[in-house]
C-alpha cells in the first residue's frame, strides 16, 4: 500500500527536529529511527540533547561522532557483543559532550512523572551511588509517610521536546502500532511532540481492531509520520527483521578511529539517501 498523503519523508522529519532539541529515543531493539538518524547527520543537526530509554548503541554513537550532540542522559551506550561505542567513549573522555549518568528505571521514572503531569517521581535504590552524587537535579527526602527516616530519591519530570522512534505499522489516520514496545508508548505520552517512521502501511484503522488497539499510539500523541521501509536498519525491528550483525561489526570497527568513522559516514550516510 502506498503511503498516505499526510506522510512525510524521513528527511522531512529530520528537518522538523530543531537544533538543541531534547530527543527521547528507545533502546536498540525498541525501534530506533535510524533512517532519521542518518538524515539528522546529513542536515548537520547541532546541539541535540539525547535522552535514551534507557540505553542506546549505534544511534547515540553515530549522532555523537557526527558532532550533533551536546548532552546525553543515559544508563549506558554500548555496541554490546561488538564492543564499546567508541565515538561515545571518546566524546565523554575528552569532555566534548556533557554526560548525565543514570540507571535504567530512573529514566523511565522521569518520563512517568512527565506522563502524569507531576513534578517528580520517587524511586528506591540509587542512594550512596556516585550516579546520585553527580546529579544536581536529583534530590533525597525522608519518606513523608513514614514515622521517621527512610530516605528516598526524587527524580524530576523530563519532557522531551521530541519522541523519535520507528514503528512496525502506521495507518492513514495517523495511528502507529508499536506492539509490546511500551517504552515507545511512554515516550510518546511524556514528550511534547512525537515523530515516527513506520515500516509498513496498515490497510485500515488500527484503532478499529481490538487485537491491534492495545499496541497502538493514537494521533492525539503523534505529530508526524513518515514511511521508511528498513527504517531501523542496521538495528532490528520486532517481528519484521533481525539486526544486521555484519554491518554492526563493521561500524564498531570503523568507529574506533576518527578517519574510520568519517569514511563510514561518507559511505553510509552521505553517500546515499536510502539505508539498504
Amino acid at each position, binding site marked *: 500500500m502506498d503511503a498516505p498523503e499526510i506522510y512525510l519523508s524521513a528527511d522531512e522529519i529530520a528537518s522538523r527536529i530543531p537544533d538543541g532539541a531534547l530527543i527521547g529515543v528507545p533502546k536498540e531493539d525498541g525501534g530506533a529511527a535510524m533512517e532519521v538518524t542518518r538524515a539528522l547527520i546529513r542536515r548537520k543537526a547541532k546541539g541535540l540533547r539525547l535522552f535514551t530509554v534507557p540505553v542506546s548503541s549505534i544511534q547515540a554513537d553515530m549522532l555523537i561522532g557526527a558532532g550533533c550532540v551536546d548532552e546525553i542522559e543515559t544508563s549506558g551506550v554500548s555496541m554490546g557483543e561488538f564492543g564499546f561505542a567508541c565515538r561515545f567513549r571518546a566524546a565523554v573522555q575528552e569532555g566534548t559532550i556533557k554526560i548525565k549518568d543514570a540507571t535504567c528505571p530512573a529514566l523511565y521514572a522521569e518520563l512517568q512523572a512527565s506522563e502524569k503531569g507531576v513534578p517528580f517521581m520517587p524511586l528506591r535504590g540509587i542512594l550512596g551511588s556516585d550516579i546520585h552524587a553527580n546529579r544536581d537535579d536529583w534530590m533525597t527526602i525522608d519518606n513523608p509517610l513514614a514515622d521517621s527516616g527512610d530516605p528516598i530519591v526524587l527524580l524530576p519530570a523530563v519532557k522531551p521536546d521530541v519522541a523519535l522512534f520507528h514503528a512496525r505499522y502506521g495507518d492513514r489516520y495517523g495511528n502507529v502500532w508499536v506492539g509490546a514496545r511500551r*517504552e515507545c508508548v511512554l515516550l510518546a505520552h511524556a514528550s511534547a511532540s512525537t515523530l515516527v517512521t513506520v515500516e509498513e502501511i496498515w490497510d485500515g484503522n488500527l484503532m478499529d481492531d481490538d487485537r491491534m488497539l492495545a499496541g497502538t499510539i493514537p494521533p492525539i500523541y503523534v505529530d508526524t509520520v513518515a514511511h521508511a521501509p528498513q527504517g531501523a536498519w542496521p538495528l532490528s525491528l520486532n517481528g519484521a527483521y533481525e539486526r544486521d550483525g555484519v554491518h554492526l561489526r563493521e561500524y564498531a570497527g570503523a568507529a574506533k578511529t576518527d578517519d574510520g568513522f568519517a569514511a563510514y559516514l561518507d559511505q553510509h550516510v552521505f553517500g546515499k539517501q536510502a539505508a539498504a
Partner: protein
Amino acid sequence: MEFSREELLICAVARMLDGCRNIAVGTASPIPGSAALLMQALTNGHARASILGSNVHNPFNDAGPELFDRAGQGRVDAFFLGGGQIDGEGNINLVGTGPYPNSDTRFPGSFGSGYLYFSVPRVILFREEHSRRVFVDKVDFISAPGWSPPDVHRPGGPYALITSLCVFIYDRDNHRFRLSGLLPGATLEEVRDNTGFDFDCPDGIGDIPPPEADRLELIRTRIAGEIAETYPEFARDRLGWQG
C-alpha cells in the same frame, strides 16, 4: 567424569540459585542464563528464568519498566551483574576509571545496577577477568554501593562473586568477601596475587564441587538447546550443542 569450565561454572551458579522463584538474567550472560534455565528445568518451572534477549524464556511483554517494577515489589529473587571494577566492599563501577566525568577509560554506563543491586536479594557478581585491574581496593566510581546504612530501604545486595579463578561469598554483616572455593588449577596464591582488595579466607580452602552428574547430563541436552535460542555460538562452542 570430564567437564568443561563452563559446565562447572553453570553448576556453581545454579547452587546459588537454590530456592529462588524468579531469576532474571541480563545482557551478555550465557553462563548465568544456562544456570537459570537449569534451575527452571530441575524445578519443573517452579523457578522461572527470564533471559534478556530470549523470545521464549522471557515472561515479560512490556519491554520497559516491568522488570524494574517487579524487582521493586520484591518479585525478582536473583539477578547478575558485572563490573569494570569491583572492590572489597562489593561496590561496583560500570562507568569508568580515573576522574569523573572525563574518565581515563569510559565504560558503557551503570545500566540497571543502581536500582537492582538494592532491590534483588541475591545479586551474583560474575566477572571472569580476575586481575588487579578489575578487583581493586576502592572503585573509582560507585555505580551501585555494596552496602547501605541501616536507615536505607535495601532488601537486596551482593550474594557472591564468581571469577575465572574462584568463588567468593559476600558477608553482608562485615561488608567483605570470603573465599569459598577455587576453580580447578587455581591456587590461593594466584587469587591473592591478582586481587587488589583484602578478603577473608577460611583455612583449608579447596576446589569448588564438580558438576553433579545428573545436572551435567541435563546441561548437555535440554539446557544446551534452550540457551542456544539466545546464545547459539556459546551453546555450540561450549556445551556441544549440535542444532
